């Protein structure tokens, strides 16, 4: 790896450290969730980084100041070198997070990862209902396996986050979801309403909940929060609303290339895990070192600062707060990644968000109408 290349850094915009490193170890996954955030054309991506290449990435990012490291994917458990990667990362001083579906996890591997120094395990569920969970996951054994592994994770003394991606087909079960998480002794519960990237964007009409569904879920979550607080219970409920019901956009990634660094399976470095779809040239760790990538590459500087903003962002007094929202959403919905995120009511394209809300009120598509995330569908999408 070398540092050569022109600097695209913007005067006056010296970035802080990339505190968060997300290592998407692989796009391989035994599940087929129709809201997967992986790119639609994942089947066409290049060769996965080797063990040594990953460890070199960890070393360089740590030197730049990264402190949190997420092992993600795809399903990171399919990497046979995972314990070795955990041990190396922990040795460098990272707080190590395994973000998994639980499929492929065993008591033996949980113990092996503990030995390697893994700090925390997050398990994702698809639903609190076994049949819905297994249908969404595309596996008839998924739910029982996840429950068993959540118990094993706690039995080994790890802190545990349980993650539920919620959407119109499971959000009305929010009380059962929370009850299940408390029963499994989750320390944190992420109730993350589907964000519409990757496969979720393809399936938006079948996934976006109605406003009434969302408000009910938030109300019930708040009731549980009060009950937990009154009991002095440490379980923390984190509710993520979908930005489709907001009038101002989210401060996506806390700003472009600000504190988040994602490395994809083939070594492409991204400012967020969905940015690969943008018509922006992103650097690869096989060609450049991370210091160059973070500080000087074209891709990481493309949307730093605000000189790239057109109206209505350019003259907006909230641009320092939300950075014009999400570049990927602006690109997906308007065709120009520099535009204001259409979630913003000031955007000329806000009507698209209003139309999606309208659509959610209509007769929904059933679960069977969703395009499941798998290799075959991805290859078809690549060809198209």
């Amino acid at each position, binding site marked *: 790896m070398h540092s050569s290349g022109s600097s695209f850094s913007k005067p006056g915009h010296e970035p802080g450290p990339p*505190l968060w490193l997300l290592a998407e170890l692989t796009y391989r996954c035994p599940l087929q969730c129709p809201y997967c955030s992986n790119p639609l054309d994942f089947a066409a991506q290049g060769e996965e980084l080797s063990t040594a290449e990953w460890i070199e990435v960890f070393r360089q990012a740590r030197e730049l100041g990264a402190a949190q490291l997420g092992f993600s994917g795809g399903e990171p458990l399919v990497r046979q070198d995972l314990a070795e990667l955990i041990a190396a990362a922990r040795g460098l001083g990272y*707080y190590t997070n395994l973000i998994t579906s639980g499929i492929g996890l065993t008591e033996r591997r949980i113990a092996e990862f503990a030995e390697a120094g893994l*700090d*925390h395990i997050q398990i994702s569920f698809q639903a609190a209902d076994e049949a819905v969970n297994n249908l969404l996951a595309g596996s008839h054994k998924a739910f029982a396996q996840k429950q068993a592994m959540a118990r094993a994770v706690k039995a080994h003394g790890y802190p545990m*986050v349980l993650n539920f991606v919620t959407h119109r087909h499971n959000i009305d079960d929010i009380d059962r979801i*929370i009850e299940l998480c*408390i029963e499994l002794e989750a320390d944190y519960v992420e109730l993350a309403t589907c964000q519409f990237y990757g496969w979720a964007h393809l399936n938006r009409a079948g996934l976006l909940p109605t406003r009434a569904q969302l408000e009910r879920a938030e109300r019930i979550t708040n009731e*549980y929060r009060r009950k937990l607080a009154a009991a002095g*219970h440490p379980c923390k409920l984190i509710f993520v609303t979908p930005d489709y019901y907001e009038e101002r956009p989210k401060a996506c990634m806390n700003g472009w290339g600000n504190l988040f660094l994602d490395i994809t399976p083939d070594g492409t470095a991204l400012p967020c895990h969905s940015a690969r779809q943008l018509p922006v040239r992103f650097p690869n760790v096989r060609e450049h070192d991370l210091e160059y990538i973070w500080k000087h590459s074209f891709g990481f500087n493309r949307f730093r600062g605000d000189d790239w903003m057109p109206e209505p962002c350019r003259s907006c007094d909230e641009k320092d707060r939300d950075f014009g929202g999400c570049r990927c959403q602006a690109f997906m919905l308007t065709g120009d990644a520099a535009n204001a995120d259409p979630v913003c009511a000031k955007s000329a394209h806000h009507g698209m968000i209003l139309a999606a809300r309208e659509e959610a009120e209509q007769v929904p598509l059933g679960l069977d109408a969703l395009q499941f995330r798998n290799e075959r569908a991805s290859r078809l999408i690549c060809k198209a």
Partner: protein
Amino acid sequence: MSPSAAQPVSTVTPDKTPRLRRGFRLQWEPAQNGHVLLYPEGMIKLNDSAAEILQRVDGQRSVAAIVSDLSERFPGVPGIDEDILAFLEVAHAQFWIELQ
């Protein structure tokens, strides 16, 4: 939810011994020029006082021992004991520390 899983809320008193909750780690970060408290998918940048206190939260020292240690290290700081107790109360309410 089952009420049996709940812990009674206890307050910080001199005889208690605090320790970091499982999954929480205090660490010096050169890039941030300060101590941080790391936990699942999160990080809190600590100010100097908070770092001084948490460095002494080791599951061995009592609250009284932490107060006396810091009073010796920083003599003449008025109200240091109340400040320490107040911080530990917050840390406990946030579930960063547990009391034994």
